[in-house]
């Protein structure tokens, strides 16, 4: 791993840290969501300060260049995060859909002065 790459990694780590901290200060992001990025920054710092760890890991997996292993490792970390985001987005969409539907139904029922016959959901566990 070249010294230049190590410097870049340190710089990115510090920038990530600074950027996330500023977002929290300005109340733009929830604390829960920042945890991943702080860990990410720490990880980058570790890679640049102790590259030896990645030499050992690269040797174990059989990747000839440790730099490639570093790339692969971070691609996986980011993939996991993208997957989580995709799931979260799906859940958010569902919640918005439920709210919208409920709002429309309630408004109509209030308008015609005709309440629901039943407000229960079916007891089926799949619902």
């Amino acid at each position, binding site marked *: 791993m070249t010294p230049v790459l190590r410097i870049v990694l340190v710089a990115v780590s510090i920038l990530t840290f600074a950027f996330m901290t500023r977002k929290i200060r300005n109340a733009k992001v929830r604390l829960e969501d920042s945890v991943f990025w702080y860990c990410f920054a720490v990880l980058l710092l570790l890679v640049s300060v102790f590259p030896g760890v990645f030499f050992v890991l690269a040797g174990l997996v059989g990747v000839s260049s440790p730099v490639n292993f570093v790339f692969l490792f971070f691609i996986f970390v980011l993939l996991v995060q993208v997957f989580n985001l995709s799931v979260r987005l799906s859940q958010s969409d*569902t919640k*918005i*859909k439920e709210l*919208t*539907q*409920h*709002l*429309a*139904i309630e*408004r*109509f*029922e209030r308008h*015609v002065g005709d309440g*629901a*016959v*039943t*407000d229960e*959901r*079916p007891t*089926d566990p*799949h*619902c």
Partner: protein
Amino acid sequence: MLKTILIIPAYNEQDSIESTIESVKRTIPEVDFIIVNDGSSDSTAEVCRRNGYPFLDLPVNLGLAGAFQTGMKYAFRHSYECAIQFDADGQHLPEYVPALMEAIEHNDIVIGSRFVNAHKPRSLRMLGSNLIEGAIRVSTGKTIKDPTSGMRAFNARMINQLAFGLNFGPEPDTVSYLMKRAGAKVCEVPVRMSDRTAGESYLSPWNSATYMLRMTISILFVQYFRKQIGGEAA
């Protein structure tokens, strides 16, 4: 006769909704209906309000699946025993609704089918229909001649599922899933459909391609991993 409601999703249908609803009221006055205005940007809501049509007004656009499900939730809350999916653009003819209502008494799902007796014309769209028909035959062993027909009736057991489940859009893959995992009894009733009177179809080439891909993956793959649904077949 089961307590029945027509669910009519409408997205930017200001030009056709009035004639559609008037023909419904004229032909089948005994059947309830509810329009679901899917966040239209034109004056669909205005037309409904002016004519005093019952309509659920979604403040944002949810797409066909979300709009249809809103109607299903309404049907569930008001204890309807049969809900019929009906297009606002004038393609579906109310004359055929009583036939669906009759058939739903002995079935879970009834599909208003254009091809029970007639042959499918040769076109790209019908190629898609054939592919879905094939996929459903492979996964359920049953033949549905017109899987893409948007005119479908559902009984109370199906309303429960469609109203609250996720991934229960009004599409052929849902029908296939319900047949396979809920033992739904499905039958087809012959109907004719007219050409749309106004508005634009969703079916651009790109949309059709992604639709086919989604249906194929859903019918041939995903549904094997979805959960079994309880309840007795009709």
